[in-house]
């Protein structure tokens, strides 16, 4: 079965998110800081009248973080939840046969394997398909530090 993915580069790798989970992609929006939240929660934004949290995807994936003026926000939804994730500039859409997505060899990538749904090859590059549920699930480690 052919599936479509929104594909974007982060650092040296290509990442993909199932297109059905992507709500929209926007240029960087004004963010309001959320005090006392962990650093990967970089703020909240106003997306057409709704307040949506925005996370730094690179930080979340434990990659070095640097958000510049070319950054975009990709809004994804998992269930009823909507979250914005910052990504570097360019974005593409690719179709991949779901048979070609293989379980991730945990050693291949620089990011935590729990976030990876699988990997696929497109034009001789490795595409890392992200498991959005996992990326957006907040485990106990991420509970915010208490005030004060």
């Amino acid at each position, binding site marked *: 079965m052919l599936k479509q993915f929104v594909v974007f580069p982060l650092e040296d790798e290509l990442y993909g998110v199932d297109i059905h989970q992507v709500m929209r992609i926007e240029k960087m929006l*004004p*963010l*309001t*800081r*959320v*005090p*006392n*939240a*962990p650093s990967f*929660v970089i703020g*909240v*934004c*106003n997306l057409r*009248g*709704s*307040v*949506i*949290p925005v996370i730094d995807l690179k930080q979340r994936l434990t990659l070095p973080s640097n958000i510049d003026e070319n950054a975009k926000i990709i809004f994804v939804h998992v269930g*009823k*939840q*909507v*979250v914005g994730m910052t990504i570097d500039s360019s974005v593409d859409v690719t179709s991949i046969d779901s048979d070609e997505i293989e379980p991730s060899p945990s050693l291949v990538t620089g990011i935590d394997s729990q976030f990876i749904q699988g990997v696929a090859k497109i034009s001789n590059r490795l595409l890392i398909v992200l498991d959005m549920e996992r990326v*957006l699930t*907040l485990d106990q480690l*991420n*509970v*915010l530090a208490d*005030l*004060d």
Partner: protein
Amino acid sequence: MTVDNIDLNTYLPIFIEETKENIQQISSNLLRLEQDENDVEAINEIFRAAHTLKGMSATMGYSDISQLAHQAENLLDEVRNNKTHITSTMITGFFHIVDEFEAQLNSLVETGEPSKISQERYQEILAFFSPSQVVAPLEIMEKISETSREEATEGECFLLEIFFSRDCQLPQARAMIICNQLASVGKLLETSPSQKHLAERDQLDKLTCRVSDIRPEQVRALLEGGVEVDYYTIEKYNCDQEIAPQVTEEEGGFRQPQDSTDNSDSHHDPLVLRHTIRVDTEKLDQLLNLVSELVINKTSLLQAATNFPLLADGVEHLHRLTSELQVIVMKMRMIPLETVFNRFPRMVRDTAMAVDKLVNFEIRGAETELDRTIIDDISDPLVHLLRNAIDHGIEAVDRRVSIGKPRTGTIRLEAYQTGNQVVIEVSDDGHGLDIEQIRAKSREMGLPGVDADAGELANLIFTPGFSTVESITDLSGRGVGLDVVKNSIEALGGSTDVYSRPNEGTTFKISLPLTLAIIQGLLVKCSEEIYVIPLSYIAETGIIFPEDIQTIGQQEIVMLRGKVLPIVCLNKLLEIEGPGPTEELSLVVVRYGERQIGIIVDDLLGQQDIVIKNVNWGEQFFRSFLGCSILGDGSVVMILDINVLLSVVRAREVNHA
């Protein structure tokens, strides 16, 4: 499912709603009946509700519910006709019936179908009533047949035999109507059974009449096309002849309600009810969202219009209209607390019985209204407080007697509105909180307490893990403490408080905002960031200077009119970057329960309507805040949660102590 060409699913929501109301009716009147077994009005109310339930459920084809309702109705009819008297066993039996109705309804809500009532359960319920009170599922036929003779008159005479169809309902009444109609057209000479006895018949499948002064086609017009009449015969008759006595009953006992399963689907026109309409709550939410958007846009227009005097009038008018619209939408969402309070009398009764205490339960102000989003979540905390009151508040009967209190304790649930808040109080006349025990416990837990006053100490019972009652009973306790109550209330933007006097009782006070959606807020500025403080918490605002701030232990304070006011500096607390305290600081004094604290900010920007928006992901990151809001310029601001600020102050006090 359909009955003839009516799609019954259309009626399901309203059926469910009205069934709930009727069950509630039965339940609350049973409680009245329990107080006074001769409360005729209560009996009548229960009877009526059971009756309505029976009719509605039979229409929907839910035969188990209608049978049970039928049973209840009959039992009550016995009571109404003084054939039997209400006993406490019967009341318990009726409560079982209510439970069963509720179970059926729940199943209906969850699965779309009521569950089957097992024969065992049915018998179990009926066991509460003496066998003579229990009726057969539906009326049993009787063997009655009578003939009577009336004066024959002149003219052409016909003998008419009318056979009622098997699914004719109340054929005896149908027969009476036919008699009336025949009599209105011609002369009705004689009937069998006689008209007098028709009324007393329980069952009938044939009516025989002698009529005169009527034409056969008139008879036909009356009877043909009638679904209730299977067939009829009409023949000329010798007017002098009598009708032979007849026996009309069938073999076998029960007559079943008919079950039509004609599945012809057809669409019907939407309904319009005149005075009230029922609106999907989702639509109300959408409306509120739209109004919220309008409020935000109005605010930005108001700001923009300050530069354009020509716009001022129009914008001012828009402002007024928006406010009115907002009020109306809010009102549409308001529901009386009654809907929650109604189920408490039963719960209190059962709980009190379980712990063998005598409790008189009073409800006041049930008509007070709250936003439905709040109503939905208020029930559990109140159940907790009520159970606490019965379990820990009210003393055992012996104890009450020995200290000269009335045997029966009183628990009062009272709601009232003050300003834009609704207060709900749960009070008991029990032994009150043991302040010394609380003091000891708080010392043990390392909470401040030694020097706190009784009011402060009492409020410590809301601390997680705080319980002074050693024996955990079945009812409350179980490790779920008052902190859960407090958290639930605070999640609703409300606050909790407790007042207690030894041997006089305890009052829990819950204050809730009238609505969750739009509040009045004060915009404050710290460096370049803007935050909102809900106006309802603000006691006063003022100006202070950096040198006014003193430190006691870790706690910064200012002296306000000779009193120590603990303060929090928003800059420090929220790690706001930028220049530190300037020459002049703004002080916002907020009140939370009994306590006041000061919030230090750089500047006050003014008050406005704040539409509360919640984020639906990562709630734990937003716990320091009541929610977010969008300002007129589209920017997002965070709304401060006063309770969180207070907990910061408390934590510092603990460290200090």
